């Protein structure tokens, strides 16, 4: 006896529909975004930090580079909201300007790896074959180098400062994007979707651009929010080691280093810049979590 009720509500098979919907339905996504607490919290925190950084030229109280050797190492007061450092520079102003540099560097630097990584990853996942194998080996090799070792060596190789930072990250950071995008592309390929599109006679570029990229790039974007945190952390660490944003430009990392010598008495000199970094990290993480929720295909 073999019976099967027809017309029952069994069965899914809505994957293809869901994926297509992802590309089309951008408005419901905005609505979802507006309700997502993580997203809003993260965006708010970041918004505040970025606004402060942008407004630095107007809300600092003293030029950040101006030294005043008669007023060194002062405790926070009305005149100097966060006190002064070992060269008499106003800490509040330096904090603002350092944030300006560090945040800007972080956000801009990360664009290169995203671009490179997405392109390479998409090509590898789409065309497969030997480029994919070679790419995977390259990724393995790059990942075998401990993160900081590679960055520091590269920065040394190319030169300290902003240029070094850019190149160091361009060369090393693309790897994770490539991996993520590659596996997303492979998954979509497996769903037979691109095969169908190809069968319909669309050119490769068209398929990549309209069907594959919009789906794979969401993963990359979500990862980017954590990656910016890592980049900023690295920028700040390089600053601490003296390899990053060069003096006299203020940088949270170098501020922490400067304050280290006075840790026992003026502990806030080192602690507060670190807290700014932590705050940035929190904002970006919340944003990332929120985005992941919102962008997730239903």
């Amino acid at each position, binding site marked *: *006896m*073999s*019976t*099967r*009720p*027809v*017309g*029952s*509500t*069994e069965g899914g098979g809505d994957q293809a529909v869901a994926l297509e919907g992802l590309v089309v339905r951008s408005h419901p996504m905005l609505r979802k975004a507006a309700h997502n607490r993580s997203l809003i919290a993260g965006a708010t925190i970041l918004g505040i930090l970025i606004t402060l950084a942008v407004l630095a030229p107007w809300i600092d109280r003293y030029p950040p580079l101006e030294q005043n050797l008669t007023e060194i190492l002062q405790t926070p007061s009305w005149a100097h909201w966060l006190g002064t450092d070992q060269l008499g520079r106003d800490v509040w102003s330096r904090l603002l300007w350092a944030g300006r540099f560090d945040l800007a560097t972080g956000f801009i630097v990360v664009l290169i790896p995203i671009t490179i990584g997405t392109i390479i990853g998409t090509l590898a996942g789409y065309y497969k074959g030997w480029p994919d194998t070679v790419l995977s080996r390259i990724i393995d090799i790059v990942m075998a180098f401990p993160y900081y070792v590679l960055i520091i060596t590269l920065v040394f190789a190319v030169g300290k400062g902003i240029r070094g930072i850019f190149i160091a990250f361009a060369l090393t950071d693309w790897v994770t994007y490539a991996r993520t995008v590659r596996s997303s592309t492979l998954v979509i390929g497996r769903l037979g979707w691109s095969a169908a599109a190809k069968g319909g006679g669309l050119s490769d570029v068209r398929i990549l651009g309209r069907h594959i990229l919009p789906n794979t790039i969401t993963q990359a974007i979500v990862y980017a929010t954590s990656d910016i945190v890592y980049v900023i952390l690295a920028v700040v660490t390089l600053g601490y080691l003296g390899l990053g944003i060069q003096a006299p430009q203020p940088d949270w990392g170098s501020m922490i280093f400067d304050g280290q010598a006075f840790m026992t008495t003026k502990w806030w000199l080192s602690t507060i810049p670190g807290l700014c970094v932590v705050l940035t990290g929190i904002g970006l993480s919340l944003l990332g979590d929120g985005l992941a929720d919102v962008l997730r295909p239903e």
Partner: protein
Amino acid sequence: MSNPALQVEGLVVEIMRDRERFRAVDGVSLTVELGKSIGLVGESGCGKSLTLRAIMGLLPERAVVSAGRVTAAGADLPLAGKRVAAARRGRLGMIFQDPGTALDPVMTCGYQIAEAPRRVLGMSRSRADARALELLRLVGIPDAERRMRSYPHELSGGTRQRVMIAIALSSEPKVLLCDEPTTALDVTIQAQILRLLVDLQEEMGLSIVFVTHELALVGELCQDVRVMYAGRLVESGRTADVLARPLHPYTIGLLRSAVDLDVDVSAPVPIPGSLPDPLNRPAGCAFHPRCFLARPGCETADVPLAPAGEGRASACLYVDELVKEGLEVGVP
């Protein structure tokens, strides 16, 4: 008869979804005698799986038993809290729909089958292993010794399902709750597993509660059947009676929508529409929007399950019409 193997009275399970509470199982009662089986049939989403899970104390997070009583062989079973698992040891066992996900992927079959005998029944390692071997043979798995050391992913769907049955039997329950155990299997294997369950019932006196969306499957195995719709029972009675002369439009619909390749010449007729959104139940009888017998009277009030002849009950206001017309839609 005193002390049925399992008795469920007025079970209500509530679920939280999107900040609202609704009843996914609304006052379900059933009784299973020793050595007999009962089928629980309904469309996907009607609450039958939840009923089993509630009985077993395995409800998912957002679901809670808000009313009802479950007794096994006369003993009251707690429906929540710490003593839930302990109370069911040796009394109830359960098998699940998808053997692919219901078996622990990192342990051998032998280990999983021997685990309850060792940890729950207190057997020694060698005795437990011997018992596991016995159980593997009992459920009809060839080459049992080798299978002891196999991992679930190395086995076919049908074999996995047999292993799951062996696992469920390993704690020596009197009642086996089966949550759509054949749905994920192909048709020939389905028949084999059903056969196995029938044999187990006969040879071991095992009582079985068999949940499925295919009404015809229960004919072989279950003496009694309950039909469920949108969380409530809409028909109950002896399987043979219900299948031969269904007394609820939904049951009729289910029978008509099934494809019986052996018998039917006519095409299957699916029931139009789909299950109502539990947060938006239709007024009155929940089935009336899809019912071919619907009258204005169906919208006014809830229709409870009411007796409709010897050993039968139906939740339809117009049961008498159905009795009179003697609709013969049954499956031989």
